[in-house]
């Protein structure tokens, strides 16, 4: 029975292969010799089944993995805005040193992307966003804790060190000869840029709307654009490669950074948030350029 079915499959295989691939019949010997006699072992099937089992096993792991909910969770998964990369990496190391045996895993990215990932069920314990709007996406759709603002970031004009277009204030960006990169409006730095430009009643036509602040900054570093609006923290992180210019309208478009624990987060996650909100956390963030610095102060 099985053998007959196999040989029928072999015949089917021959015709299908023959028609589509080569336009002529395959040598019959191949078909009869190997497949037709039913000598094919169950190995390929077993492999495929094992593979599928493995995959579904992995899927199961992924879904239930964050160990969230356990009071003694040994791992904290933090989704954080890309602009927090430097400061949070440092805080993560400090946290691990203070809580031996606990590891902090970070997923840095555009806040909007991270928010979508969390809403779609990504295993995260803590979310630190670059804007209240992206945090709201998460708190509206999931059972997250109430968010606390832990940092503020303001915009700067970033120009290449030699400042080829001689930009020194915001209204220079409206000059059509000046090539400007902005963040896309969908991401927080783009929303802040729109707000600042509106406050200054300026109409700027950028050459590109980048998908996140780091990509915008890269365009300045490579000298492809004459100016861009990025965060002060990014200017500090890229010290030497770009020059930051403060402008008064930046104060009207300050981005608040909220942080919240997410549904099912354990004690460790709450302790990490406490660290971020602590004086030590504030110092690390201030060093990276976050917080209420004097407007107009030039980063090194």
């Amino acid at each position, binding site marked *: 029975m099985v053998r007959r079915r*196999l040989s029928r*499959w072999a015949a*089917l*295989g021959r015709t299908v292969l023959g028609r589509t691939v080569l336009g002529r019949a395959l040598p019959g010997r191949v078909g009869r010799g190997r*497949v037709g006699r039913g000598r*094919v072992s169950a190995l*390929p*099937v077993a492999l*495929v089944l094992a*593979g*599928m089992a493995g995959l579904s096993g992995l899927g199961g792991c992924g879904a239930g993995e964050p160990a969230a909910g356990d009071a003694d969770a040994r791992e904290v998964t933090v989704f954080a805005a890309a602009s927090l990369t430097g400061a949070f990496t440092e805080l993560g190391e400090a946290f691990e040193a203070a809580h031996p045996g606990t590891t902090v895993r970070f997923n840095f990215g*555009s806040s*909007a*992307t991270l928010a*979508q990932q969390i809403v779609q069920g990504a295993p995260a314990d803590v979310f630190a966003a670059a804007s209240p709007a992206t945090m709201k996406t998460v708190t509206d759709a999931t059972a997250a804790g109430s968010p606390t603002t832990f940092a503020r970031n303001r915009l700067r004009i970033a120009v290449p060190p030699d400042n080829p277009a001689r930009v020194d204030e915001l209204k220079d960006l409206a000059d059509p000869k000046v*090539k400007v*990169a902005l963040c*896309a409006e*969908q*991401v927080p730095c783009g929303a802040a840029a729109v707000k600042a430009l509106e406050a200054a009643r300026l109409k700027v036509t*950028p*050459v*590109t*709307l*980048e*998908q996140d602040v780091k*990509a915008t900054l*890269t*365009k300045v570093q*490579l*000298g*492809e654009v004459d100016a861009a609006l990025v965060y002060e923290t990014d200017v500090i992180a890229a010290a030497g490669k770009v020059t930051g210019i403060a402008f008064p309208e930046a104060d009207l478009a300050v981005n608040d950074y909220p942080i919240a624990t997410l549904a099912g987060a354990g004690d460790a996650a709450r302790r990490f948030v406490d660290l971020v909100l602590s004086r030590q956390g504030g110092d690390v963030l201030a060093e990276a350029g976050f917080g209420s610095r004097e407007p107009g102060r030039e980063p090194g």
Partner: protein
Amino acid sequence: MLVVPAVAGLAFLVLPLAGLLIRAPWSTLPARLAEPHVLEALRLSLVSATVATACCLLLGVPLAWLLARVRFPGRRLVRALVTVPLVLPPVVGGVALLLVLGRRGLVGQWLESAFGVTLPFTTAGVVIAEMFVAMPFLVISVEGALRGADQRFEEAAATLGASRWTVFRRVTLPMVMPGVAAGAVLCWARALGEFGATITFAGNFPGTTRTMPLAVYLALETEPEAAIVLSLVLLAVSVVILAALRDRWVSTP
């Protein structure tokens, strides 16, 4: 027995597609499709992918011929280099293009001072980014066809007095046409879906450089439903075009 893994493979490729179809917001679909920015992005995608494929044919077919027919030292190395864009992450490809063709790049600097041409942030930049990632598909496909073709026809034509160019045009090219067509289809499809090199090299601005994949990515940041709609549009258009072209080419090779 090959059928089981074959079906598993098919399911693996088709299931995500089914996911898109099931999750698609069918009720708001017509309204979303009528939005001008969707058509704008679609038009830009189709035009730039087609122009990129045409340019790839102009440069890629001769390159494939060189690799398949001319013996020269370092040919293996050249062949390996041709496939570099296949393994290079497209974003890195985009940065590499900026370093060469950007405003301060090796060649770009000279282009700007001599001709006043800057490629980044223009539709031409989109075409170049797409060419960079898509050309290897064409070259590999055509080179394979050339190696499989019977060289005795070319030799016969040459002994009858045909010049190298005539042999290529009248004998070689018609013989490998199915390979060229298949390569062009692959190249076009790859160019149509290009994202990383485009957003890095050409930037992202509606109307000039925001192609469908870029629009999908940005929509995903805030409105996943809009992203699904855009993906479906891209998918439907490409399937229709590929199916139409394939039928034509298979019946008259």
